[in-house]
């Protein structure tokens, strides 16, 4: 290899190495955390963090096949978010967003 001679010539210089890389990335094991993309961490209806299951679900410890509590988040057109369970009970009494009093319509559901 010609590296040695080249390094001798320009010892202190930060010099580009030839096209042959000394290190190549072969495998990468990355880690990421997911959370609901919400503005407020807690569900205004049950006062529990949206990442956790809502109070009712925690009490019933309702579980799906994998044992995960199936308690997703729902966003309204107003961009406010709540537990889906909490909201579906709420709209039976009052079809408005509890935070901004706009008429409630679902923008999207967590999945």
């Amino acid at each position, binding site marked *: *290899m010609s590296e040695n001679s080249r390094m001798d010539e320009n010892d202190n210089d930060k010099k580009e190495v030839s096209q042959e890389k000394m290190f190549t990335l072969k495998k990468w094991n990355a880690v*990421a955390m997911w959370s609901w993309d919400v503005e407020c961490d807690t569900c205004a209806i049950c006062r529990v963090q949206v990442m956790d299951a809502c109070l009712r679900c925690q009490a019933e410890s309702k579980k799906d096949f994998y044992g995960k509590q199936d308690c997703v988040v729902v966003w309204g057109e107003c961009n406010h978010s709540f537990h889906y369970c909490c909201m579906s009970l709420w709209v039976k009494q009052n079809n408005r967003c509890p935070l901004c009093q706009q008429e409630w319509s679902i923008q999207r559901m967590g999945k």
Partner: protein
Amino acid sequence: MSRQRKQEDNGPFKRSVDTPSSQHSKRRRLFETDENMSDNSVDPNRRPNFSNVGYVQVGNGFSRNLNTVQLKPTAAKKIVIKNLKSEPKLPEDYRYQTWEKLSSAVLAIQQSKSNQYSLEELYQAVENMCNHKMAHTLYTELYSLTETHICLNIEQFLAESMDRFLFLKKMNETWQNHCDQMIMIRSIFLYLDRTYVLQNPNISSIWDMGLELFRKYIVLNTLVQTRVVEGLLMLIEKERHGDKVDRTLLKSLLRMLTDLQIYDSAFEQKFLQSTERLYASEGQRLMQEFEVPAYLTHVYKRIQEENERVIHYLDTSTKYQLIHTVEKQLLSEHVTNILQKGLDSLLEENRIDDLTLLYQLFSRVKNGLVELCSAFNAFIKKRGRTIVIDPEKDKTMVQELLDFKDTMDNIVQTCFNRNEKFGNSLKEAFEHFINQRTNKPAELIAKFVDSKLRAGNKEATEEELERLLDKIMVLFRFIHGKDVFEAFYKKDLAKRLLVGKSASVDSEKSMLSKLKQECGGGFTSKLEGMFKDMELSKDINVAFKQHLNNAQDLIPLDMTVNILTMGYWPTYMAMDVNLPEEMVKFQDIFKEFYLSKHSGRKLQWQPTLGHCVLRAQFKAGLKELVVSLFQTLVILLFNKYDELSFDYIKAATNIEDGELRRTLQSLACGKARVLLKIPKGREVEDNDKFRFNNEFINKLYRIKINQIQMKETSEEQKATEERVFQDRQYQIDAAIVRIMKMRKTLSHNLLISELYNQLKFPVKPADLKKRIESLIDRDYMERDKDNPNQYNYVA
């Protein structure tokens, strides 16, 4: 002597003799026959009274005669028995003569001389006298005869200065003689015994009469009695001191006392007193002289000996009191002393046999086991505390606790007879001392589990591991601050899962189910969520691989991503770092891919947890480096430049200062030095420069370069504890509000005591006060206006 009276059968021989009308005689009126009938008549000298009496003594040959008669029914002659012409009469001097005969026989017996009359003859004489209403006289005569004889015997026992042993021998001899003689006399006077005595309840039998007289004249004599009892006690004491004594002599004399009915009054009391005295002093002395095990063995031997004594010569009625006395003097009196002096060392040295003996002996005395149990409890608390309390021993604490528990369990099992009280006491003691030091044992137990569940731990098979986990769960049960355990366990579990270092999924799952069983689903739901995240990530990665196949212009990089649910996992420091272009590209592709599948979510990358495999070309050849993401970022910089300054690396990667220093340290100062630090040294300074080490040699192809974690751990540990305390605050708040909501008003002290009942972790009263203050500030409750020590709930 067998007589048969067959009133009905011998009807033909029946003859009504008009004999005196006493009931006794009436019964005798029936005709009795005897095989010696003819003899009787032929030899009147031998039984001179017979023919006169007019009836025949019955023998067992009766039926033969009867048969003779009945077998000849055809005989021409008929035997007719007629009444006697005149009533038979006794000779005048009959009574005198007969008594002469009898008294001479009795005297002969008493003097052990031979007797001229046959026993049969004498018996007959007695019977005849009885039947002629002379029984009373006979009895009186016999009484006075015996009395005189016994009175004569007393002299020999009153002599001064007689050797005690000889005295006892003599007494025994006299007693034996008395018994023999009385048996003989009774045999002769048996008929008297069976008729006259039986019919007069106030008169004692000949045997009893003998006993009474013996008792009255000999043994009730104070001097004699004292001598006998003292002699006996002396012999017994001699035996207790280990000498051989004549047990038969003892037995016989004690039987004498029992027979004379003075065993209780004359002997037993004194015997028990002397026993008590002896063992009281022996107990005192030996407790001083002997070690506890030797003492216990001695006590056991003593009890054994006394039991034997009861079997061999004492009366069984003494047994309970005797054994009780021994136990009391040798054990009860010294219970505390024995426990103080010896229990700790016995337990310490695991002396199974001695402990078993101790338990057996103590179970004999009242309160013995209670005392033993509390001493056992105190020992565990004391010993356990030394294991737990010393920070220097933290490394071995859990293993020591496990060993200690094993030993103590074994002692309860084998030595203490699986006594439930001891088992419970053991648990109580463990729970007590393990919580003497807050939080640390919980943390160390969690770490111990981690070390066992981590891959590369080949010291145990699955079954052994399973058993170990069970044992650990027992320790876990004792711990009050279970939340501390959970926090550390979770952190370690996260590491195991993310680095793929878990030894076996089965063991992990089994540990999880044990925790669930112990603390309920709430405790483990997040831990379970972590496992689920790992499984879901696998599926996602498979899908992502397929997705990548469609993409173009990508370097060949094998990327996998673990997607963790926020909240299930420990929180990690979020930091932004500069990734190389290709990596960012991959990251973006993945993010897009993931969010398209899961709407409403957001992803936060965790660079601290990532790791990579690099291919590295050194002069000596190709190597593979297994490194963390941070190490990767640093190393990749050297693709462009051979030498870089610390500042440049810091700016280029944007890794946090401390983290970067540790990373560089691991690469340039560790075992596998891929970089060279200029100047050399252990610590990374601001002005250091780093160079690619082309001369790198390592015999392995695949090299793992560990992150340096020493400092981090202590920080992490603090952070973990901090988080636990945070969580506890909420729990305290919740508990206060719960209680106040129910009670409406409550004094400070009552509130605090209720809180201690509800909270499962240790808290200081000062912390509780702070929480109460905070709740008052937040208008959950208020101080009573009149009484500052009273709180009111505010709805």
